[in-house]
């Protein structure tokens, strides 16, 4: 019962934090556009937060540049669990048109684990909303565990997971 309530609340109150790790502004202005009258994501309970500590979902845009990498990881670690990462745009998904540059690490998943990819250059606000809605629909709080334990593993573990994933996809390239 309590878990159902928590699940309900988490699906309806996703506060997002936006970080641009090296993108061109295109996706960023489309994300900002989500807040404005035509799209108004406050309808879905989405608020754009300023501090990583207040956020549930990290909206990442742009490919990851070498200089942005540590900051991206740090912002992710500053967010309290449970948290989700959404890669918005083709660059954030794969590095996009900048793939192969000397200063590029590639997509967001090279640094932190990503829960949802929204491709597009830039994706339309409708698509971003649809993506977020799909992500929210997957948020579960299992019945048999109290909500606190159902949260994601602590940050240290995640860091190693991120490193593993990064290496794995490096091999794949």
């Amino acid at each position, binding site marked *: 019962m309590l878990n159902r309530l928590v699940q309900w*609340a988490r699906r309806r*109150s996703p506060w997002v934090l936006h970080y641009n790790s090296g993108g061109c502004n295109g996706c960023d202005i489309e994300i900002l556009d989500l807040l404005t009258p035509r799209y108004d994501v406050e*309808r879905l*309970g989405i608020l754009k937060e300023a501090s990583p*500590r*207040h956020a549930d979902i990290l909206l990442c845009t742009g490919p990851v540049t070498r200089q942005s990498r540590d900051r991206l990881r740090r912002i992710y670690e500053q967010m309290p669990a*449970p948290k989700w990462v959404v890669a918005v745009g083709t660059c954030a998904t794969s590095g996009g048109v900048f793939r192969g540059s000397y200063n590029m690490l590639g997509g967001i998943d090279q640094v932190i684990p990503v829960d949802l990819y929204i491709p597009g250059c830039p994706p339309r606000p409708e698509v971003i909303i649809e993506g977020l809605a799909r992500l929210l629909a997957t948020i579960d709080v299992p019945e048999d565990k109290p*909500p606190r334990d159902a949260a994601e593993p602590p940050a240290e573990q995640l860091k190693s997971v991120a490193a593993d994933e990064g290496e794995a996809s490096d091999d794949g390239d």
Partner: protein
Amino acid sequence: MLSDILYVLIRLLVLPGFTFLLACALLFQWIDRRTIARLQARVGPPWYQPLADLVKLLTKESILPAEADLPICTALPLVSLAAVLTAAVYVPVGGHTTYSFEGDLIVVLFLLSLPALFYFLAGWVSVGVYSVVGGSRSLLQYFSYEVPFLMALSAPAILTGSWSISRIVGQQATATWTVFVQPLGFLLALVGLIGKLKRVPFDIPKAKSEVVGGPLTEFSGRKLALWHLTVDIQTVVGVFLLVNMFLGGSDLGPLSSLPLAGLMDALGFGLKALVMLLTLSVTSVLYARLRIDQLADLGWRVLAPLGMLQLAVTMLIGAV
């Protein structure tokens, strides 16, 4: 004996106590956000949004920087919440008072100003740069609005000759609403309340583009939820207080003599509270945020002298 205790418990925890306040806080937050959204050509959140936000924050991980003082950081939001909840006990709602004594106005004013100090402390002990800057801003702001606010709220008390909120309310039912006698005082109190609640244009301590989240930047999860709840309940208590002090409480003039007095009381009080709340919402849509020095100027050069003027006039009339 037992029924007495039960009665007290119900009053404290259900009506007009905690549960009622919580419901009001969530409802007020929704009305506020919805109104602002509508005025900005948006749709705004659904009615259950404040509840979802609260439940979500309560069940999130709560982390703090390693250098932060954990026990104090945990205690501060609790104490602030307790302060505003206690203040609520002495504020009459719809003609009913849980507890009342001569001088409860002073207690309420004191309790309502406590969260501002705790807010400052929260910034100070959670050590982030933005927290500290936001904290010192909130303290500066506190000195700018608090004095006019106190003066504005003292005037009705002096007029009535009593420091009990319920007596001031009662007095207005026989004479006329204070707002008609002291329109200036009412405006000052309103401005003071906006400052207290840190709403636009006085949202200086938590200005996103300058200090990120202000003193609450480093707070998360349960602690953040309690801080948000404190502000929401502070809004409710502040609005109720102003309705009581200036708008005659639940008094509806000639309509009060209609049958079903209790219902009319609740209706009248609710209506006035709604009007006050909408005033707050509309104000926050209309202005840009002030700078802290501009606020200090406004507070000390305009609001404080006006407050003194109001007090002086009230005292003179009382003497004559």
